């Protein structure tokens, strides 16, 4: 067919949101579009947003699942605030997302789903496609379902299966619109449906039909191109935070030469780490799905006692349950990595939404004086390096370490410049194999003078048989002790141990070198804070940004950094937990800025807030 020539426009960035019913395959569609975009060399940031229910009632607002992808010809820091394009697979998806679109956004709707019944389900009395309410947008009505079914006619596919392929029609159409390379998607479909060749054919056909429709239809007159971004040379892959964290843990097993033991209980949004690690037994990794959160950390601690790198992965409710065992690990002074992929609380809260409200629990949530190390990754790919850093601290200092990820970095994705394995830190440890006192006895609590770490003497080592436990121990010997002076000494030593951990200084980004306002963040807010700072600087305002990876102990230079600015602003997805720490510890009048909506900050929100602080003090 002779297609009318389409105009091609160059864009520097686009934000697309795919939205549909939970069962419509929007996450998969977004993932594939992201992968195609990565192949092309754009910088990318993604944000999935889905309900906790596996299949909420079809066509309802609570059932809407979406995937947002931001891609550009320059480096970007967030998945984008307001989408330029919405793909709405039904009326619910339109209604749920409309208010967040940028003005004049393109909306591609699946008209087949705009039936009276579906419109009524979400409270539309008239169809928004006909009543003029979408006049501020560029609406492209497409009969996605029926065209998909039509394209598959003759393939001998059941109608239900044919309808399910409509997400591939949509993907084909969007891939055409944004000139994406699609070979990897076709290969993906071959892998995914390897056991059902008829579905490989159906989905490929639907994809091609969508692509061809774009080329021929008059509904779409423009095709877009976004040039590759200038990125550091090297090999990349697109990665989510949970995947990166799991691979980071594999890397710790390799670089420490220790067997890794993961004890975990399924919990959203951390389960994917368990799934991923369970595939990598060849690295000497054992994964145990325990009977509960307490057993999960208990088994990890037992393995650590036996000389493994013990890890447990969970979310906030799980950390609450693990508290007593974390205290035991602190008393035993054994290495242990506890990963908390934070979600909105309290209680069950909103399991698929993000929050940073477990900082207090990580720092203080145990009985007694029970200090430990706390670190947080700043982006999806940074989860890889954060896992290595958590293991470094745990192994070097024989302490539990809490790694605070959150749903935003865990499920979001970005291109990851693959590290060179040989340049990853060496995490090798030496077990104690000989008595450590002059009289030939073994003293399990005799410390290394520098790290204050005690010896790690594992069962199976002849001559070093010893008993450890949760009861207070005498200095050096580890015998049970109720001596008041000894307890005072041990409590203070456990605190000193954590303070003695060497962590890098915090860097300050202040390109104008004359900023008076510092914005301080931690964890997943790095992207939106960075994007907001950039926007302000482009408008001629000056602002400094510092971001904490280490929450306990804090970097040694932090006090000095804070003191060199007139104003310190701390945006957090909680009610000011880091701000409390900073105010208490450094007597700095830090200004908290808080959002607890279950969603990440948008760059625009932070830009507006920071602009006000910079201009008005």
């Amino acid at each position, binding site marked *: 067919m002779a297609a009318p020539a389409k105009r091609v426009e160059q864009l520097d960035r686009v934000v697309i949101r795919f939205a549909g019913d939970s069962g419509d395959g929007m996450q998969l569609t977004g993932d594939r579009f992201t992968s195609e975009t990565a192949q092309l060399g754009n910088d990318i940031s993604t944000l999935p947003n889905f309900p906790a229910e596996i299949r909420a009632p079809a066509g309802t607002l609570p059932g809407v699942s979406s995937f947002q992808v931001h891609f550009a010809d320059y480096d970007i820091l967030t998945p984008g605030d307001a989408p330029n394009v919405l793909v709405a697979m039904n009326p619910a998806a339109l209604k749920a997302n409309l208010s967040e679109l940028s003005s004049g956004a393109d909306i591609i709707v699946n008209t087949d789903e705009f039936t009276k019944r579906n419109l009524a389900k979400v409270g539309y009395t008239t169809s928004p496609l006909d009543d003029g309410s979408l006049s501020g947008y560029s609406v492209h009505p497409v009969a996605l379902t029926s065209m998909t079914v039509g394209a598959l006619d003759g393939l001998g596919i059941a109608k239900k299966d044919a309808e399910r392929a409509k997400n591939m029609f949509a993907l084909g159409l969007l891939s055409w619109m944004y000139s994406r390379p699609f070979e990897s998607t076709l290969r993906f479909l071959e892998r995914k449906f390897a056991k059902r060749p008829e579905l490989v054919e159906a989905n490929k056909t639907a994809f091609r039909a969508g692509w061809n429709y774009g080329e021929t239809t008059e509904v779409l007159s423009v095709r877009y191109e976004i040039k590759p971004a200038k990125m550091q040379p090297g*090999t*990349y892959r697109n990665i989510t935070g949970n995947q990166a964290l799991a691979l980071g843990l594999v890397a710790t097993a390799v670089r420490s030469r220790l067997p890794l033991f993961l004890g975990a209980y399924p919990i959203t949004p951390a389960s994917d780490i368990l799934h991923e690690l369970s595939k990598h037994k060849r690295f000497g990794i054992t994964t145990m799905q325990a009977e509960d959160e307490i057993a999960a950390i208990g088994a990890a601690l037992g393995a650590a006692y036996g000389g493994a790198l013990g890890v447990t992965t969970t979310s906030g409710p799980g950390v609450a349950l693990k508290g007593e*065992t974390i205290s035991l690990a602190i008393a035993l002074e054994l290495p242990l990595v506890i990963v908390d992929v934070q979600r909105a609380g309290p209680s069950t809260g909103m399991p698929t939404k993000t929050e940073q409200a477990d900082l207090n629990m990580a720092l203080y949530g145990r009985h007694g004086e029970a200090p430990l190390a706390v670190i947080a990754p700043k982006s999806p790919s940074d989860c890889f390096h954060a896992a290595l850093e958590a293991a470094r601290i745990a192994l070097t200092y024989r302490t539990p370490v809490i790694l605070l990820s959150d749903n935003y970095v865990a499920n979001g994705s970005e291109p990851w410049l693959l590290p060179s394995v040989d340049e990853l830190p060496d995490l090798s440890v030496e077990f104690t194999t000989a008595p450590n006192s002059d009289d030939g006895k073994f003293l399990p609590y005799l410390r290394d003078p520098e790290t204050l770490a005690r010896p790690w003497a594992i*069962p199976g080592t002849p001559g070093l048989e010893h008993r450890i436990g949760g009861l207070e121990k005498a200095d050096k010997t580890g015998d049970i002790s109720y001596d008041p002076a000894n307890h005072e000494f041990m409590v203070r030593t456990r605190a000193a141990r954590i303070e003695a951990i060497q962590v890098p200084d915090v860097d300050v980004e202040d390109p104008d070198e004359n900023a008076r306002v510092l914005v301080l963040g931690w964890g997943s807010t790095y992207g939106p804070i960075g994007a907001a700072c950039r926007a302000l600087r482009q408008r001629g305002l000056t602002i400094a940004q510092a971001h904490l990876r280490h929450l306990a102990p804090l970097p040694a230079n932090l006090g000095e950094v804070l003191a060199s600015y007139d104003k310190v602003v701390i945006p957090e997805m909680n009610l000011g937990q880091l701000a409390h720490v900073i105010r208490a510890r450094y007597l700095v009048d830090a200004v908290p800025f808080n959002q607890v909506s279950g969603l990440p900050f948008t760059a625009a929100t932070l830009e507006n807030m920071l602009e006000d602080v910079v201009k008005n003090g």
Partner: protein
Amino acid sequence: MASPTQIPVQLTMKDFKSDQEVRWCPGCGDYAILAAVQSFMPELGIPRENIVFVSGIGCSSRFPYYMNTYGMHSIHGRAPAIATGLSASRPDLSVWVVTGDGDALSIGGNHLIHALRRNVNLKILLFNNRIYGLTKGQYSPTSELGKITKSTPAGSADSPFNPLSLALGAEATFVARTIDSDRKHLQSVLRAAAAHEGSAFVEIYQNCNIFNDGAFDLIKDPDSRDQHLIRLEQGRPITFGSDDQFSVVHPEGSFGLKVQEGGTPIVHDAGVDDPAYAFALSRLSGSDLNTTPIGVFRDVRRPSYDEIVRKQLVDAQAGSSGTPEEMLNGLLNSGDTWTIL
């Protein structure tokens, strides 16, 4: 098959005594159990460094401090979970869990049943004194219904667990019962438990002379025990009584076993695959101890958790090649990658 290293070493009871002062109440049944375990250990022929005792919280859980092996006194109820991680990652070790009726059956009930169903390679010694001792005398999950204690002045309203029935319900592959004061019997049970691959669950009736003194006198006192204590012996008809006048029989048409005078006793076989047999035996005794079997109720073979986990690791490692660094490099570079020059 994963099994503890069996190197013949000449050790004595003294080698298993730690330098710590034993601090149970004078007259506590725990002393007898400790002495029985310490004098039994050399028989195993396992080097001390390959033996680990893990405990929870309670009087019995002080046990590891007194054993000159590796040991961990952990937290309330969690010993089976901690020991699972240790055992699954260190098949070369002989791992023993020491627990009590409150520790194992109340706060740690979940971990106990899951360790048993997984058949983790653990020897679990449950010291049952039917009372909370360390917290000074509250009723426990094995205390009799109506028991008057500090926390139940009007009598306990809770029906007790039968620990062996519970363990059998949790798919335990080895279940036994013995008594603190009968060292010979206790050691025979330990011997059988140590030889078992997988979880071995041993209930030890233990007297708390402070808060529940005499709880097991009916089956300890020479004047009464023969009328109430049923000694299970592999391959032998189950009879008891001062003149062996009582038999354990399987009445026709009945699901369970019962005790009667005379009749044809059943012949004990701990290897019967159907757990219903051991369960029926466990139901002979209740709170009143009137007819109480001791010995090995069940001893069957099923792959242990440790074996299965180990096999998966070994298989995965056999199917891979290259140094760990090369393998990691391959893993990082898998999936859809792209290169920027």
